[in-house]
């Protein structure tokens, strides 16, 4: 299964380039940024889940000593109701602005309403208490099914359902309903020997990155705005800020600082435009930081959802029909990841007759953001547990069932695309062959579960420039934020082309004025697409270096070949020179060499994984302990295997947290009651065993080295795998996330 190609750099495990800075505390993250004359901004947030804002009086705050400026939605440039495209689909500018500073309505507790800039953070916090907001409190709706009811409180009086492309007449909380369909469902279900249908619900969960959002903005009188911040995409910050503040993109420069995690949650802007507005008013640099509670209450979680799944199969284990219904909470404004959920729900399998209905529904919760394979985990929890039940009914090994039904090259997905070469069956085989699966699991209240997860992966745009240095190293300028070691994985691809070591590359994540357009670090695209651009840039360097060698030897370019890091003359002359040697002679052969590469590749190639988990359930407390965990995944080609394993391990553990502990807990007023890391409990190292990550390599034909994105897939399978393991342990099927001790005790009739 392994890729047979021989590589020098790819597949090795060099020390990451930013490593020393990050273990010594020298790396500068967004909140670490300092500049002379800095003011500090803080946000006032709505204490209500749903309220009309009748008036805001900022005069007392403005008069408070040390306060330099106060802003509200009134300070936005008027924009009407334009539709803007930020590269990820059209959004309403009004919604974009309203989410940053609420104008007439606050739509969730934590919604930003006003901001203060002052001489220090504490003064800013004190001044927030002096802003008088007159609210008319409205009834909230925080659950997707309630929000879909005819008589539900309406968040947006002007929202009309996009019903399969047609706008409906009546206002509704349902922003859209769409459908993917394949084959003939009735026929498929008629062919089935077993049909199983269940309903599932999942709670709202947060990305839980450890670094809160931050932004420092400086507006100059010449109209030039600079923003230093941690973000998954400097260019998407530029695009959003320029739309929200109605400024040309060329007037906004975004400087990406190091970023302390994102997982999809640091794409949308919240405080960045506000920092800019405060700087515009004061003429000073303004730094705005969020608290942990701000992050939970005011930034995009991933949706709570209601999912219904019906699957039919023959007694030989062939899926004959599948029907899914996905209703996802968008949060306060339309745009949940239900589209991606519907893309993923059936995509592990080759199913002839299938249907999926998707509903995007607004509720009084923060606007949802992407979170690692957004939308896929909710759907997989349902599908993969129903499949487990089918396997039990027909007496088939669940991994065999998956191999039998696995989607393969040439199969058509229910949502349309035809599969290129994928490695799903290979990941299931790897799980089956792993010693974990054949080791017996003894003991009461213990069980083993398996599940698989799919993510399509994305390409999108990237730019890279390479400058050759006279000592034979290169500087590689890229626009992709490095969240998990991508400086290394991108540098290694360029090094491979040029026959130099990974250490001979100095990767630089540049600001938006210093590198070509690059989309976000998200969609598992960075090693794939920015790596692709780096490959192209290195090829450009190689072409130019061949020209230089030809010049040096006074031969034709066609008489120079480059292999294994050495340029050789092929016309009989005994000439050869390595990359370093030639780099030292650039001055004599025409001056500097700069290579460039851009990419917008379409062949991202899905990545699929299969997980095996052993659990033990404490029947007294309902606590589920993870005893052993193995995750296999198709990485196409692992550029830096350690960081691929890291993605798989980290994703699996986020999935374990989602499965067992994590949820936004709301009271009847629609207020989140657990907005801290104490009460919103993410896994600690004491909760976990080692996570065995098994890399499967089925090269992606859409990338020169066969890379598939790996970041998102590993979060998809865990909740279902754990639910299946819990069933084996205590005989109870869990259909609600999280499977927290209380819910386990309820399900077993203990409480």
């Amino acid at each position, binding site marked *: 299964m392994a890729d047979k190609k021989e590589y020098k750099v790819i597949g090795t495990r060099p020390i990451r380039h930013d490593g020393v800075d990050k*273990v010594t505390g020298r790396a500068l993250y967004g909140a670490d940024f300092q500049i002379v004359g800095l003011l500090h901004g803080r946000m006032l947030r709505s204490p209500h889940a749903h309220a009309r804002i009748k008036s805001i009086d900022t005069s007392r705050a403005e008069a408070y000593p040390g306060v330099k400026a106060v802003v509200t939605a009134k300070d936005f440039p008027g924009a009407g109701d334009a539709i803007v495209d930020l590269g990820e689909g059209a959004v309403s500018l009004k919604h974009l602005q309203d989410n940053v500073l609420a104008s007439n309505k606050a739509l969730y507790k934590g919604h930003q309403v006003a901001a203060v800039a002052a001489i220090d953070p504490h003064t800013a916090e004190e001044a927030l208490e002096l802003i008088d907001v007159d609210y008319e409190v409205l009834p909230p709706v925080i659950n997707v099914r309630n929000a879909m009811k005819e008589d539900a409180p309406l968040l947006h009086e002007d929202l009309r359902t996009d019903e399969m492309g047609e706008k409906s007449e009546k206002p509704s909380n349902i922003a859209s309903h769409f459908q993917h369909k394949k084959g003939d469902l009735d026929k498929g279900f008629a062919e089935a020997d077993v049909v199983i249908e269940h309903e599932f619900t999942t709670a709202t969960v947060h990305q839980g990155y*450890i670094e809160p959002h931050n932004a420092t903005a400086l507006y100059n009188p010449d109209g030039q705005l600079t923003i230093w911040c941690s973000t998954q995409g400097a260019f998407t910050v530029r695009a959003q800020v320029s739309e929200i503040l109605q400024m040309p993109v060329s007037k906004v420069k975004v400087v990406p600082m190091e*970023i302390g995690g994102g997982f999809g949650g640091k794409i949308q802007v919240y405080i960045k435009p506000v920092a800019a507005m405060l700087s515009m008013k004061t003429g000073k640099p303004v730094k705005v930081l969020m608290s*942990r509670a701000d992050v939970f209450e005011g930034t995009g979680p991933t949706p709570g959802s209601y999912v219904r799944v019906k699957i039919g199969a023959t007694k030989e284990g062939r899926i004959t029909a599948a029907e899914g219904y996905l209703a996802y909470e968008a949060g306060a404004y339309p745009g949940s990841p239900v589209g991606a959920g519907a893309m993923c729900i059936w995509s592990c399998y080759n199913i002839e007759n299938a249907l999926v209905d998707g509903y995007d529904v607004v509720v009084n919760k923060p606007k949802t953001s992407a979170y690692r394979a957004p939308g896929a985990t909710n759907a997989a929890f349902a599908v993969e547990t129903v499949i487990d039940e089918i396997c039990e009914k027909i007496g088939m090994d669940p991994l065999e069932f998956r191999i039998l039904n696995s989607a393969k090259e040439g199969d058509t997905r229910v949502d349309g695309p035809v599969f290129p070469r994928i490695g799903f069956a290979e990941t299931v085989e790897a799980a089956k062959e792993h010693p974990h699966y054949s080791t017996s699991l003894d003991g009461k209240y213990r069980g083993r579960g398996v599940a698989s997860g799919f993510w399509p992966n994305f390409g999108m745009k990237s730019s890279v420039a390479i400058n050759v240095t006279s000592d034979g190293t290169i500087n590689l300028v890229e626009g992709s934020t490095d969240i998990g070691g991508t400086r290394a994985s991108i540098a290694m691809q360029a090094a491979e082309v040029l026959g130099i070591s990974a250490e001979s590359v100095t990767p630089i994540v540049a600001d938006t004025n210093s590198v070509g357009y690059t989309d976000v670090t998200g969609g598992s695209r960075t090693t794939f697409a920015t790596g692709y651009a780096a490959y192209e840039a290195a090829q450009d360097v190689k072409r130019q270096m061949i020209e230089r060698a030809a010049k040096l030897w006074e031969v034709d370019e066609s008489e120079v070949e480059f292999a294994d890091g050495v340029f050789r003359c092929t016309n009989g002359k005994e000439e050869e020179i390595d990359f370093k040697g030639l780099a030292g002679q650039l001055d004599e052969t025409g001056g500097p060499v700069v290579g460039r590469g851009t990419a917008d590749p379409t062949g991202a190639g899905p990545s699929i994984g299969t997980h095996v988990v052993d659990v033990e359930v404490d029947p007294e407390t309902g606590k589920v302990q993870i005893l052993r965990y193995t995750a296999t995944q198709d990485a196409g080609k692992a550029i830096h295997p350690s960081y691929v394993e890291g993605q798989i391990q980290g994703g699996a553990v986020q999935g374990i947290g989602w499965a067992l502990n994590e949820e936004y807990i709301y009271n009847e007023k629609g207020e989140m009651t657990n907005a801290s890391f104490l009460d919103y409990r993410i896994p600690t190292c*004491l909760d*976990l065993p080692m996570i065995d990550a098994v890399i499967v390599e089925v090269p992606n034909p859409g990338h020169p080295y066969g890379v598939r994105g790996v970041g998102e897939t590993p979060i998809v399978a865990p909740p279902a795998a754990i639910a299946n393991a819990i069933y084996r342990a205590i005989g109870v099927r869990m259909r609600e996330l999280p499977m927290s001790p209380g819910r386990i005790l309820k399900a077993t009739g203990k409480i």
Partner: protein
Amino acid sequence: MPSKVHVQTTINGEEVEFLCEPRQSLLEVLRDVLYLTGSKEGCNNGNCGACSVILDGRLVNSCLVLGAEIEGKSVETVEGLAEPDKLHPIQDAFLENAALQCGICTPGFIVAAKALLDKNPNPTEHEIRYWLAGNLCRCTGYDKIVRAVQDAAQIMSSEVSA
């Protein structure tokens, strides 16, 4: 604004004096007064360990200590670990084991691991997990962090015995 307190203390072996407001936490003082930004704020209420420092030999969350409290005491932060020409073995082990992804939790983990190995040079896996349970990492799933601490323990004890 409340008037400031004058504090004399030792940070990473150097004598330091500063002025701070009585309400400023040690974390704020380190970051905003002394510009030692290696200690990070993840929660500001003692739940994430990103701000871990060693205060008179004891591991603490610097967000839960007041700046004024460190008068006459000794503080070790992540910035004090490496020598000019050499990383601390724990830092090396984190790099070798790829025990960081975004790296925001890394200073806290490294400081906490140092406090552990200062006390218990040969911890079991369970002891490592128990000790580090106050430090949250959202990226790695902890596997490589635990292995890095195991490796560092081994390297440090072989250095001592050599």
